């Protein structure tokens, strides 16, 4: 059972919570290696909320102060992450390739009346 969720944290919150999904293993080169446990993580960073233009080039005029993170969980989602879930319209600024329906599933459970969750009605033309 895989779950695709989106989060926003303050840098401090993320520094604390990421430890819940990290694992440390001794590496063949003798050092310690820290990786994600039972999940794939993409740190999107501070998302630009508003764009302007300068010399016809896009310039970010308002940047989020929250650190955006997409996580594809392969096992149960730690409950500590729940308060930081965010639900941008599918699929936001990032997706895991081919996993849009996983995000749509959680999105539509939260917002069943969203236009993204309504089945289009074919026009009876034939």
């Amino acid at each position, binding site marked *: 059972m895989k779950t695709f969720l989106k989060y926003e944290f303050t840098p401090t919150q993320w520094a604390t919570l990421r430890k819940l999904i990290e694992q440390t293993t001794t590496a063949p080169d003798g050092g310690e290696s820290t*990786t994600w446990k039972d999940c*794939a993580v993409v740190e999107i960073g501070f998302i630009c909320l508003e764009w302007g233009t300068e010399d016809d080039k896009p310039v*970010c005029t308002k940047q989020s102060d929250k650190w955006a993170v997409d996580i594809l969980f392969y096992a149960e989602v730690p409950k500590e992450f729940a308060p930081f879930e965010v639900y941008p319209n599918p699929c936001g600024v990032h997706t895991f*390739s*081919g996993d849009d329906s996983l995000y749509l599933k959680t999105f539509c459970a939260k917002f069943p009346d969203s236009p993204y969750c309504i*089945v289009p009605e*074919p026009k009876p033309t034939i």
Partner: protein
Amino acid sequence: MSTLLEQASLVMIPSGYKEDVVYSQIPTNGNGDLSFTRASNGTRVNSAGLVEVCPWNFVAQSESIGTSPWLLNGATLTSGQTDPNGGTTAIKVELASGGNNYVYQGIPLTNPVNIVSAYLRADSATTIGFSLGGSNANAVNLTTSWQLFTFSSTDTSGGIIFDNYFGPSPTQQAKTFYIWGAQLNIGSTAKPYFPTTDRLNVPRLTYQNGGGGCPSLLLEKQSTNLLVYSEQFDQWSTNGTTTANAGISPDGTQNADRLNYTSGNIYWLDASINVTNGVSYTYSLYVKPTSVGNQFRFYLDGAFNDSTVITTDSSDWKRYTWTFTASATGSINPHVLLGYGYSSQSILVWGAQLEASTYPTSLINTTSASATRVADFATTNNISSLFGSTEGSFFIEMTYDGRNSSGAIPLFLRSSTNSAYNYATYLQFGTTNITLEAYSGGTSQAVISGGSFTNGQTLKVAFGYKANDFVLYVNGVQIGTDTSGSISANLSFIDLGTYNQIASTYQYNGTISEAVLFPTRLTNTQLAQLTA
């Protein structure tokens, strides 16, 4: 070689696969099959030399109609029905009368043409709606025999729907029918049916050199295409013009865009992306020029400026790449430029990618959002019975990639006692060489290292192990021996692609075309013969 393979306890030559599994030829009871993990789509080069999404069937749960993400309205489903192959995987659908009752799966579509197919039948002749997208209803006439219904559509506004709402004056009658094997693939030609469940963990058997020959298993690290609309350049900002779907692209469908050039300086600009100072990135683009020698320019501005001029050297499609290191942290604007004093003409383009990597990985298609392909990994179940208890040998054929192999662990023989490296026997690449290391109980027992390889070289690597008798061969040459040490105790698992599924540092990026386990220590002559 074939005589030697008869002595093997496990032979994996990538050919047969399905979701989650790469089949081994030996043993034939399935014990040696590899579980495959990659919880996202990926692309490969198929046997026709075309870039293809794996899996190519965009319908999830193709034989489990009703399981999420299928949506139902006024539909009663009964599973376990006889399917076209004589199995019991078909689904009976009973749509109630009235309302717009349906079985539906939303599928994000961006390719301009897509083709959908499904096997359908009914208990008595009837007509149902079987449509793709949200704009036009398509009626199909079912008989009591299974029939494959196929049609293509340019409607990308929705997904696949079976319903009772069709015809000029929809009567919305009750309908009973049977479904099996729903599929949607891009383009106007239906591909062979590929059964799906969650569409994840599909091995990529790739024909990297333009198709033909035998496939190999593609294993890559996690990577993110930071660009959006990787195939839809008409969505990029420009001061010129773009012709959408102007040519056949490397995926074999009519979805390559033309960047039109007559004179002056023309730019195409994708959405801004954030980069980090000191991190290396690779920008790649498939290009088919008007004529060999046409030039274009990868250009960046924003937090810093950088660019490179590419001179095309093929009249056919070719993927051109540029690796750069960010000299500042911040937002940059990725461009493709024509003109600006260079020898430019109009070019066909497809598959733009920008990733935090010192080399290009396989294409990750994007639309309105950046997209990540997660890492590939393959492992066996506990197959201790296939390992010799006191000796053994292993043969693996793979392609060495000098750009990314340093530190990579393509093969990891894991102990059932402890999954850590210091209980295992494994191969690890250096910058230009390879190392065989065997541990037992936390202590190094044998180390053999050597060789000097060139980028893209096919490596046939074999090693034998027995107490105080270790040897490593590469391409017919003995790299070295180690005559002191015990073998790793309780070897039970074979991992392909990385060390214990950790850290991209150890991720093998490349292909494996054969992996063979022997329960005995082959002779040096046999190991040389295997790798010659």
